[in-house]
């Protein structure tokens, strides 16, 4: 193994390879920072470039794009309250409030360092534990996926706005929206209104950008007051620097992020989008001061961003160990691996040649480049906030259009985006919140399809959902957390009532 690493190190430590990795990382950072452009697109764009390259160089470049995009999604989330991917939704919860307090630089500094820690830790886990974790992920059948999604839906309580009931309604709205399209089991069209674009259901990206970006623009438009000069002093550039020590002080949040990213992240099809939300939820729930979350609390950012880059390593586990990509980005990456003649699977890890170790080390290098580039850029990113409000609003909408249209060139999705924007605006205004809608949209199909797939496989028998150990564990945890939430909610209400009366 040592010799494998040395051989791999020899492959990575070449000028060409390092340049390729750095270039991939830079492109990933740029594309990840633009709302709507994804790491999958960055990797697909680079794919043809890598054909002529030796494996470690080519794959390193693709991994760089993956890593860069994973980290830079935090930039629009923090500065503008616009998450470009589902996994950076949770970054907005504390990142944006912190930025509004004028501490955008601090938020970015925390996010960058946490991303780096998450990425490095997940690389270590990937190289040491990939086969057993992959085996664990394989044990997820319909029952387990269903229970996982129920567990995930409990997170709604954490991300709901002022009212738990209204948060629940918002989650249900997302769940309902997810049933639009071709039914995953029978193939019947549901609420498609003969729209080709709706056949495969509501696309997550227009919904995401509408609910967060467009709704935020509408809010800003409503509150826009040209007489109110933006006090530039509120955005302090001098505090914009990487925050190693402060991040380390919140080591518990880092660990929660890494664990969640490495354990939930590898579950194909479900893990990637909820791992960071799980990390946020758990960090908040077991924090001594849960009420500070959502107001610009540092552990909130740290847990989410460390999870965000840890889940990339997590998503690589089934991709490399089983040849099963969990989502779009790793699916494109898998294509890149196969074109290079590298067949993923357990054999890849038994293979003592340096290539696989070279890939691990290239991923490590990508994380280092990500840290360097983001640190260099941090003062630049902040300047976005110096753009006058009305120009910024126009520019954000223009970028939203590119993100949504660029993905699949479908004008219908632009209407969908605007519709979700208007809906999101009112949901925010009347205390429902938009994050639960996204959770419902992501977890809804997993819950529904797996419940029905399971019932089909078990011939209508419900008991396996409760007797299969992993499934039962998730259900028990979900019920426990739900009870805890209701109790905390009840106590919180009591306290605020007694405060009000005293």
């Amino acid at each position, binding site marked *: 193994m040592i010799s494998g690493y040395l051989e791999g190190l020899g492959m990575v430590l070449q000028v060409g390879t390092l340049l390729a990795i750095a270039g991939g990382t830079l492109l990933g950072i740029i594309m990840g920072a633009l709302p709507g452009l994804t790491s*999958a*697109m960055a*990797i*697909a764009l680079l*794919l*043809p470039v890598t*054909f*002529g390259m030796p494996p470690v160089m080519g794959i390193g470049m693709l991994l760089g794009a993956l890593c860069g995009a994973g980290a830079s999604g935090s930039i629009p989330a923090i500065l503008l309250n616009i998450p470009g991917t589902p996994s950076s939704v949770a970054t907005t919860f504390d990142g944006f409030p912190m930025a509004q307090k004028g501490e955008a630089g601090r938020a970015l500094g925390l996010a960058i360092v946490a991303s780096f820690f998450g990425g490095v830790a997940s690389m270590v886990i990937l190289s040491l534990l990939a086969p057993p974790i992959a085996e664990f*992920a*394989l*044990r*997820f*059948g*319909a029952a387990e996926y269903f229970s996982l999604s129920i567990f995930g839906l409990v997170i709604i309580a954490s991300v709901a706005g002022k009212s738990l009931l209204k948060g629940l309604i918002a989650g249900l709205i997302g769940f309902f929206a997810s049933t639009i399209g*071709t*039914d*995953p*089991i*029978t*193939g019947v069209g549901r609420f498609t209104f003969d729209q*080709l*674009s709706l*056949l*495969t259901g509501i*696309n997550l990206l227009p919904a995401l950008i509408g609910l967060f970006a467009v709704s935020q623009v509408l809010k800003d438009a409503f509150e826009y007051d040209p007489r109110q000069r933006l006090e530039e002093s509120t955005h302090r550039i001098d505090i914009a620097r990487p925050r190693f020590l402060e991040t380390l002080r919140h080591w518990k949040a880092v660990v929660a992020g890494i664990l969640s990213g490495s354990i939930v992240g590898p579950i*194909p*099809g479900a893990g990637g989008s909820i791992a960071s939300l799980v990390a946020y939820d758990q960090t908040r729930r077991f924090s001594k001061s849960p009420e500070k979350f959502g107001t610009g609390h540092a552990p909130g950012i740290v847990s989410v961003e460390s999870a965000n880059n840890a889940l990339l390593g997590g998503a690589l586990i*089934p991709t490399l160990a*089983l*040849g*099963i*990509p*969990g989502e*779009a*980005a*790793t*699916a*494109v*990456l*898998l*294509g890149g691996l*196969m*074109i*290079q*003649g590298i*067949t*993923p*699977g*357990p*054999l890849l890890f038994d293979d003592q040649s340096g290539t696989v170790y070279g890939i691990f080390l290239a991923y490590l290098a990508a994380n280092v480049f990500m840290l360097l580039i983001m640190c260099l850029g941090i003062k630049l990113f902040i300047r976005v906030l110096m753009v006058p409000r009305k120009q910024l609003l126009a520019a954000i909408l223009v970028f939203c259009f590119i993100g949504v249209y660029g*993905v*699949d*060139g*479908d004008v219908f999705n632009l209407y969908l985006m605007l519709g979700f924007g208007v809906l999101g605006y009112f949901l925010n205004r009347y205390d429902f919140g938009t994050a639960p809608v996204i959770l419902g949209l992501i977890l809804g*199909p997993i819950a529904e*399809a797996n419940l029905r*797939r399971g019932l*089909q*496989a078990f*011939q209508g028998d419900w008991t396996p959902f409760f007797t299969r150990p992993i499934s039962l564990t998730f259900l028990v945890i979900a019920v426990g957390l739900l009870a805890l939430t209701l109790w905390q909610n009840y106590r919180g209400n009591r306290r605020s009532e007694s405060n009000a009366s005293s």
Partner: protein
Amino acid sequence: MKKLLSTLTLAAAMVVGGPALADDYPTKSIDMIVPFSAGGGNDTFVRALQPLLEKQLGEDLVIRNIPGGGGAVGMSRAVASKPDGYTLLAASNAMLTLEAMGNVPFTHNDFDFIAKVIEEPYVIAVGGDSQYANLEDLVNAATSGTTIKVGVSGVGSSAHIAAVAMANRTGAEFNIIPYPGGSEAISAAMGGHVDAVVLGGAELRSALQSGRLKALAMSYAERSDSLPDVPTFQEQGYDLTLTVWRGIAAPKGLPADVEKRWVDAIKQIVADGSYEQTAENLGTQVSPLYGDELDAFIDQSAEVMREAAGDLAK
């Protein structure tokens, strides 16, 4: 009438496209619509071909992923675009599947097919330690009362239709369970959550190579070099021949010289052998087909799909 129409189209193309028509095609970058998201079989096939085609044609090939509607959105976009050779489509069986299911407002007759480039078989595979050693075992179990759960990618997908066709031709009754995509179906088979999967050979390649899954049969007429140990349905006595093919198509009315330019380019790439290794790494085979032969092949495949889809509707 037809001639008049094509003359009109030609004239229109001249007015709109300007120099596009002359023999100096191509003069600007060419859009290639991939009606699926990045990372799918269709996408990887074109992206691997992209640098080679750009070298042959001397212009940029811009790949546009237009997923949605199981390929329907991208394909309708292609149908609606000008047949000037600057908007092409990465075509595959999916088109014929959609047509057979009757969900889309176009048929394969609305396209001019330039070339079929690669193909792969449908494979039925079971877990590596499955009790079913061969197709015979599986079919016997299925016909003697055991419920065989078969995972496929996507309800109404071509794999789904292939699985139905397999069930019909072998007389076995399968409990077909649709997963959102190939990778979910493969992991379900690896984890023992389903008894078997039916998927394209490329998607199954790494799982088969690592021994996590075991192929019982594949749908070519004859054994293939990429899976030499896997018997065909035909040799096991079942009349079933299906292939997954991928190629290039254009909206109907493509000028003959443009088509020739493309056919020449692809022929050259195939002759160079530069694509062969890549195709093999992807678990597919280069099996080029052009012109009339190709049209006959497409018509026949469409017929097979329609039959199988009819079975699905039952």
